[in-house]
């Protein structure tokens, strides 16, 4: 206790007031009512947040109670384990029901049956040209309108140089160029920030693919050399496909899911 722990010191010297315990008990008892009053009154985003927090609290509370009751609880596999002697080689498979194994195999087969190019986002809303491009008027009188500015995020390679203004039909603004993507590995359930290597396919138009436009559903190639993934032939894979899952121009970043 440092010298200035004044509260503790005061308590040590003078004790607490006589009704301190009573007051605390009452405050705790009232807390329930206060909470419920608030929960009934609150609305909007605050209500959402409050309910989320409260749900979490309750969940942990339930878990703790369950832990405390562990010994007296009835478990699903209690009977199975208790019933007779089980050979050692079967010990690790206890409790795995036959049905579960079956369903797993069925799922696996279905997956294999499905097309090789099945992607997480199968349907994409097409993007129209006039949404994609803004007309840039040129000429001293501003009456020529053959130039276009791309309004979505794009990927351009490292060694890209712009054409001369006379021949540059599509302008890809440098502020909207993306270099890296947040890629989720669907099996590992983890995300990595990986370099984009190129745009393979933009479902809306081949023109967009050529321009390297990143919209929702676009297939991109990302650099996975850091992940240490291995191909079937045993070599280290460094380029892998991923599909963009968000609208980069609205979020300011590219989120993608790895196609495995």
């Amino acid at each position, binding site marked *: 206790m*440092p010298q*200035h722990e004044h509260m503790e010191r005061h308590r040590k010297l003078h004790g607490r007031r006589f009704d301190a315990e009573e007051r605390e008990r009452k405050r705790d008892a009232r807390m329930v009512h206060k909470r419920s009053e608030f929960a009934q009154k609150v609305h909007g985003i605050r209500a959402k947040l409050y309910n989320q927090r409260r749900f979490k609290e309750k969940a942990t509370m339930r878990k703790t109670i369950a832990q405390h009751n562990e010994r007296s609880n009835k478990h699903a596999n209690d009977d199975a384990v208790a019933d007779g002697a089980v050979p050692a080689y079967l010990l690790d498979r206890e409790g795995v029901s036959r049905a579960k194994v079956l369903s797993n195999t069925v799922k696996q087969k279905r997956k294999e049956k499905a097309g090789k190019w099945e992607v997480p986002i199968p349907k994409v809303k097409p993007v129209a040209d006039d949404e994609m491009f803004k007309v840039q008027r040129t000429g001293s009188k501003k009456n020529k309108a053959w130039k276009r500015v791309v309004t979505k995020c794009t990927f351009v390679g490292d060694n890209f140089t712009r054409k001369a203004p006379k021949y540059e039909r599509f302008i890809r603004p440098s*502020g909207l160029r993306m270099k890296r993507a947040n890629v989720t590995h669907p099996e590992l359930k983890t995300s990595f920030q990986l370099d984009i290597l190129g745009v393979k396919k933009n479902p809306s138009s081949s023109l967009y693919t050529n321009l390297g436009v990143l919209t929702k559903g676009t297939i991109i190639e990302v650099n996975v050399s850091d992940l240490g993934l291995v191909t079937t032939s045993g070599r280290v894979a460094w380029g892998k496909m991923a599909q963009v899952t968000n609208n980069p121009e609205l979020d300011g970043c590219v989120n993608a899911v790895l196609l495995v």
Partner: protein
Amino acid sequence: MPVYNFKKMAPVPSASDFVDIVLTRTQRKTPTVVHPGYKITRIRSFYMRKIKFTQQTISDRLTAMLADFPRLSDIHPFYSDLCNTLYDRDHYKLALGQINTAKQLVDAVARDMIRMVKYGDSLYRCKCLKRAALGRMCTILKRQKASLSYLEEVRKHMSRLPALDPNTRTLLMCGLPNVGKSSFMNKITRANVDVQPYAFTTKSLFVGHTDYKYLRWQVIDTPGILDHSLEQRNTIEMQAITALAHLTCSVLYFMDISEQCGYTIEQQCNLFRSIQPLFANKQLVVVINKIDAQPWETLEADRKKLIEDLLEESGPNTTMLKMSNVSEEGVSQVKNEACEKLLAARVDSRVSGNKVDSVMNRLQVVYPTARDGVTRDAFIPESVKKEKELGAKKPKKSRKGYAPTVDDSDDEADDTPPESDDEMIGDDGVSTRKKTARELMWENGGPGVWAPDYREQYDLADPEWRFDAIPQILDGKNIADYVDPDIDDRLRLLEEEEDQLAAEYDAANMQRMDDDDSLDEMEKAQVSEIRDRVKIARAHKERPGGRNRPALPREIRGRVKDMHDSDAKLKASAIEKRMDKYGVDTGAMLERGRKRERDDPREIRRRKRDAEMEDAAPATNEDEEMEDGRGKSKGAIKRARKEREQSVKRASSQARSHSRPREPSQMGLKDDDMAKVAKKVEKQGQFRWHGGAGEGDHTKAVHLVKWMNTGKKRNGTHYCR
């Protein structure tokens, strides 16, 4: 010299609070209304401002936090080591480092997102980008949850650390647990440290202050140290070690010779040996404590020898003192010795240091030499000498009425005798010491009863005037208004001026008398009368505020009796009287007035009306009386007649409304036809914007617009983003 006070650090909010603070501030301090119809540049700058503001808020707060927490490399090594033992230096640095990184990350996010917003082409897109930016910044903050909560704990603990100055004069107690360090602390300071009969009652450093030689001494009580290696020591012991290692101080090593603390003298000696390296360059006092329980003299010889050997080992500078906290024997001696040693050492280090040379170079001490053999004593007046001889003991000044001090507490008993001595001297006529006003006051009943009479000190032309009563009001005037220091001078000047004026007036009179000599008595009287009237007229004319209304023309003035009623006419006799006074013939004037009156159309009309009434009234009266006069009483007849007369009068009277001005809309129009034409033209002019509709068809725009007021109203669904 920095002052080590860590109490001023601002509280560190928890991560979730931090997010709330930042977002609330953004919402409150930036504009909230934007519409999709606005110019796109305006929409963009609206959202860019929000992002920038949020980033600025976070950045400012984190910077302030980083500035608040002391950098361990910058503070005194004692504090730096103490922080290390208490909070773990690595953890502390990591936490601050993470906060710094978070700040940079937030800046980077804001920079990127603002760049994106610059390309936003719709309100929706800008809004989404703002939302993403704020979300990413808040996520970064949320990740700092652990660092922030750790820093808050550190801040709380640091603010409770004792205010310990590492550079001042310090006494430091150390020793095994329970040997009486804290009891000694309580004896010499007012720190009120907790003392209990078990080990490790004191768990942290405590600071108290004591006084020696009018200087303030800092006394530090440390937790007990056990005798084991440095690695094994816990946080509580390490605090004591830190203090021992870094403070320049006088160390009191406490030993319990009664062995009540649970450690033998041998163990205590071993601890001394093991921490001896820390005593280098310090003033060491070995305190043999608890001699009430085990006096030094009766201590067994071999144990005594252990201690004496210890002292020999530690060197010549070590002093051994015996004391007891219970019997308070030797307590102040220990304190004095420790203070004295440290003081001597501090002075010594000052003098031996290299700084002293720079001061000594500038010092020069000069003793004056005698110029000749003449003695030059202080001049003492004869009277004073005489008084000194007479009153061998100096008359003591009365202390009555002053606050008592230490000096006069012993003289309290003989307070009055010196005064009486004083009186006697006064009676002898040799010494005439005046009584002070204070003495007089006490003789005459004390304060509130007697007050000095300041009139005695008035300096007037005649001393007898001093006690004269001065009235406040004289002849109905407050004399204070007339008090003037220069009154004599002014009076003299006034009198001079008056004399001069009188002389001038006399001279002028003499001259006029000379002019009037040619007139006889009658003429003189007339002249004087004329002059008087001229004077009166002039005075009347010059009278201010005499007449504040337009002057009437003469013709009216001639006829008017009094000024307030311009219609009233003067009687002919009055005109005659007035005009005769001026010697004017009134015949023609009156005739002209009468003629005007006769020709006045109003007057003619009035006369005519009167004549008609005269004619009508008798006739009707007669008829009435003829018809129903018989059956009625006299009073009723009278009443009826009166009524009749009045009704006739009313009938013949003219309504005031004839002179009323016309309706404003018809001003400037000749007659009703003109007005009708004008109205028609106006209507034709308005046809273009009113159409054929009349006034009844005029409409007013509705206040409640349907599309604005139907449908659900929730946050953000309408045009408030």
